[in-house]
């Protein structure tokens, strides 16, 4: 199955740039077989391991598909394939003559390299695949490279990504140095390897976008083409999560790791969603929301680590399974949301929410699908986000009830997750309301049109996936159980620790009730007829679209709570006198970590480097003086050494 995937992906890369149809067919076959391989593992096929006969870089290729890899492979196959379909409508050849071909090429490379990252069980090849994956991400982000802010976002991504890769290089090299081989596998029996995990943690946390290391994420996700954003957000940052889960499972972890991951995860969730709430750019909002969701996943993983250290299988298993399920769920609904945002961008040409509005009438499909995604991401039943967040909450409650030391981590985490959940709902109410409800704020919003069939199809599949996990979570339990068992074999034993079937039933009842209520309303409206009139307008004579609530106004209160950390920049002129001439108020939300912390440090480094560059002026005589000075210094050193 994987061979088919490999052949199809390579086949897609080679002729892909020239023939879009062949590329799409190959891509669908390739990603479909990736998905099928993963499903085969879930269906009970044994773990698959393979060593190549030939050596690459002096090492034999070692691929391994176990429950955990398969879990992420499934997500890769689904989002990768749907993104390819979506790209056909979103980034067609006639609108983007040269970049569409490049996009197809790098899409294939990216899927292939991510697959290798997931399968590779040799440190050297893992690094090669990881680097290729990071590079193809860069080329996909900068597809539309004419625009300056896109190039800037691409460079920022590349720099951050390489900072992370540097840590990974150190990690794998040190690991290979201590074990004597590049081969990876379970090594829990060697406690002396434990401290190395911190290196891996730093490297993978950059990719996953955990809080202080998330700096590259918002601009990269916002500026990339939407299908790329969906892949980056849905799958690529999950590679970081995969690394964290994978190596925390293989390596013996220091005791502090569980606490650290839980703490950072909770902080990431809260700050990520608070920042999301403050955004005016629709895709940037979604990007910050990805930061939040990675935080939730990290809380689950940290809880799992604490559980493994504590020896109590119950809640640790529940938390880890919740984290894994949230990986899937976030992949599904965030891809859906980015597709919907891309559809809005495609129709109107802007991501600024303050220029949109009233799109529900012109884009009903997109609006409904966005709402489904927004409900899922806010963790509302009956959709999938609720299921995984519920599992994490249940696990955390168990921890608190169990009164183990881990409760000190779980209690604040519960509170912060609850706050983050409420803010997520607020953020998506804001986004949905400003973009789709009300009246169009500008002409582009008024002239919007619905997206094409391929884009709509991809979104419908994702929405169906969200609904399926929400309605029948028990069906997906065996797969999650397999992945958990791959992480920690003692937790392999059977039944789901949470009443998942009951939850599915409750969700189904909820859907039925909602449908019945909707049908009832529809029938009564049909029977009695609808009366259309103005909303009460305080007696104001000529209401205009500009008088609607803005997104900033909706979020102002909640953003104010976090003012101490964002430090919003404001410029305003208040209206004065009885007949004010003009007034304005401009607010900008700085990227706090990037602009206040990393910017100045990088600036200082550049200044020193610039000063050092003065030495390189091209005057021969001075070079000779340097040389003479260096020689004299060396000579003196030797002489002094001799005398001693």
């Amino acid at each position, binding site marked *: 199955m994987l061979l088919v995937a490999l052949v199809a992906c390579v086949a897609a890369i080679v002729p892909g740039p020239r023939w879009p149809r062949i590329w799409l067919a190959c891509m669908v076959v390739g990603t479909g077989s990736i998905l099928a391989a993963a499903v085969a593992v879930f269906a009970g096929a044994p773990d698959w391991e393979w060593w190549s006969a030939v050596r690459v870089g002096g090492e034999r290729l070692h691929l391994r598909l176990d429950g955990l890899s398969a879990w992420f492979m499934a997500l890769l196959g689904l989002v990768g394939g749907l993104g390819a379909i979506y790209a056909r409508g979103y980034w067609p050849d006639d609108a983007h003559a040269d970049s569409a071909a490049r996009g197809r090429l790098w899409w294939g490379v990216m899927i292939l390299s991510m697959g290798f990252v997931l399968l590779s069980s040799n440190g050297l090849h893992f690094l090669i695949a990881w680097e290729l994956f990071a590079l193809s991400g860069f080329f996909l982000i900068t597809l539309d490279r004419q625009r300056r802010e896109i190039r800037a976002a691409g460079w920022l991504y590349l720099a951050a990504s390489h900072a992370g890769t540097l840590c990974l290089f150190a990690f794998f090299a040190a690991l290979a140095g201590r074990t004597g081989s590049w081969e990876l596998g379970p090594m829990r029996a060697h406690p002396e390897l434990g401290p190395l995990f911190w290196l891996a943690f730093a490297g993978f946390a950059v990719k996953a976008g955990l809080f202080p290391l998330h700096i590259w994420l918002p601009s990269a996700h916002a500026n990339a083409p939407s299908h790329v954003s969906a892949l980056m957000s849905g799958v690529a940052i999950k590679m970081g999560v995969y690394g964290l889960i994978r190596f925390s499972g293989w390596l013996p972890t220091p005791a502090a790791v569980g606490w650290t991951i839980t703490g950072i995860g909770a902080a990431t969730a809260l700050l990520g969603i608070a920042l999301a709430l403050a955004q005016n750019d629709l895709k940037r909002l979604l990007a910050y929301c990805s930061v939040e969701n990675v935080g939730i996943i990290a809380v689950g993983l940290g809880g799992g680590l604490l559980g493994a250290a504590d020896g109590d299988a119950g809640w640790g298993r529940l938390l880890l399974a919740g984290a894994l399920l949230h990986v899937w769920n976030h992949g599904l609904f965030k891809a859906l949301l980015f597709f919907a945002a891309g559809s809005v961008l495609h129709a109107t040409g802007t991501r600024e929410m303050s220029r949109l509005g009233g799109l529900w009438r012109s884009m009903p499909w997109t609006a409904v699908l966005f709402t489904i995604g927004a409900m899922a991401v806010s963790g509302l039943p009956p959709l999938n986000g609720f299921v995984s967040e519920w599992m994490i909450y249940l696990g955390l409650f168990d921890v608190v009830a169990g009164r183990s030391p881990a409760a000190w981590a779980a209690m604040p985490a519960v509170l912060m997750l609850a706050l983050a959940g409420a803010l997520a709902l607020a953020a998506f109410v804001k986004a949905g309301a400003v973009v789709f409800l009300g009246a169009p704020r500008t002409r582009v919003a008024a002239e919007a049109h619905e997206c094409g069939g391929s884009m709509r199809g991809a979104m419908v599949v994702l929405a169906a996936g969200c609904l399926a996990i929400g309605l029948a979570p028990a069906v997906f339990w065996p797969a999650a159980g397999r992945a958990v068992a791959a992480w920690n074999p003692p937790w392999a034993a059977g039944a789901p620790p949470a009443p998942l079937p009951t939850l599915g039933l409750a969700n189904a009842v909820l859907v039925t009730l909602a449908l019945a209520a909707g049908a009832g309303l529809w029938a009564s409206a049909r029977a009695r007829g609808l009366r259309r009139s103005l909303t009460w307008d305080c007696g104001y004579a000529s209401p205009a679209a500009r008088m609607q609530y803005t997104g900033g106004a909706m979020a102002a209160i909640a953003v104010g709570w976090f003012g101490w950390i964002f430090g919003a920049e404001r410029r305003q002129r208040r209206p004065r006198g009885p007949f004010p001439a003009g007034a304005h108020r401009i607010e900008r939300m700085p990227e706090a970590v990037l602009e206040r912390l990393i910017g100045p440090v990088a600036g200082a480094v550049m200044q020193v480097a610039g000063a050092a560059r003065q030495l*390189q002026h*091209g005057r*021969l005589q001075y070079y*000779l*003086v340097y040389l*003479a000075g260096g020689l004299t210094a060396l000579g003196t050193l030797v002489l002094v050494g001799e005398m001693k």
Partner: protein
Amino acid sequence: MNSTLNLLIGLAMGLNLLALGSSRLPSVIRAMAVQGVVLGMLPVVITREFHWPVALVALVTMGVKGFGIPALLRRAMRAANIEREIEPFIGFVPSLLLGAIGTIAAVAVAQRLPLLPEHAGTLLVPGALATIFTGFVLLVGRVKAISQVCGYLIMENGIYLFGMLLLHSTPLLVESGILLDLTVGVFVIGIIVDRIQRAFDSLDTRKLTVLRE
């Protein structure tokens, strides 16, 4: 024997100062050429007994350093049409002072170096150090490319003096090889000087900064 050796090396050190102090290119070249001849005699003096190969090498050295290379340089000078070093980085009097300080420092340093007993009484090491230092001052302090070539050659003379220390262990064939390299180097530099002159209408090496990056 040692007194002859020291006399010759002292002469070479005096020529260093002459090269540093003169502004006219022909006299710098002449100083360098005479220094080459003086140094060329050294192998014969050091080996005490007369050997044919040594005498041959000494003869060739004198020929190349005293006549061949200076002739090449004079030709380049005529081709580039320059007579004087007009605006040095380090003026002539400061250069002289630097050279004098360098010479004293070389003698002082050489006394502290752990030398073999047979070299301790000679001026070989201080002379070599002082000559190399002079070459450096010329390289750094002069603007015209030809003056710099002279500086380079004087520095090479210093290295040659150091080589004299190893005369008993280094085959003279190696010395001849170095000499050949040097000739080729000067030959190439002569061509480059011509090219610089044509490209920049001047031999001022400061103008070469436009070539950076």
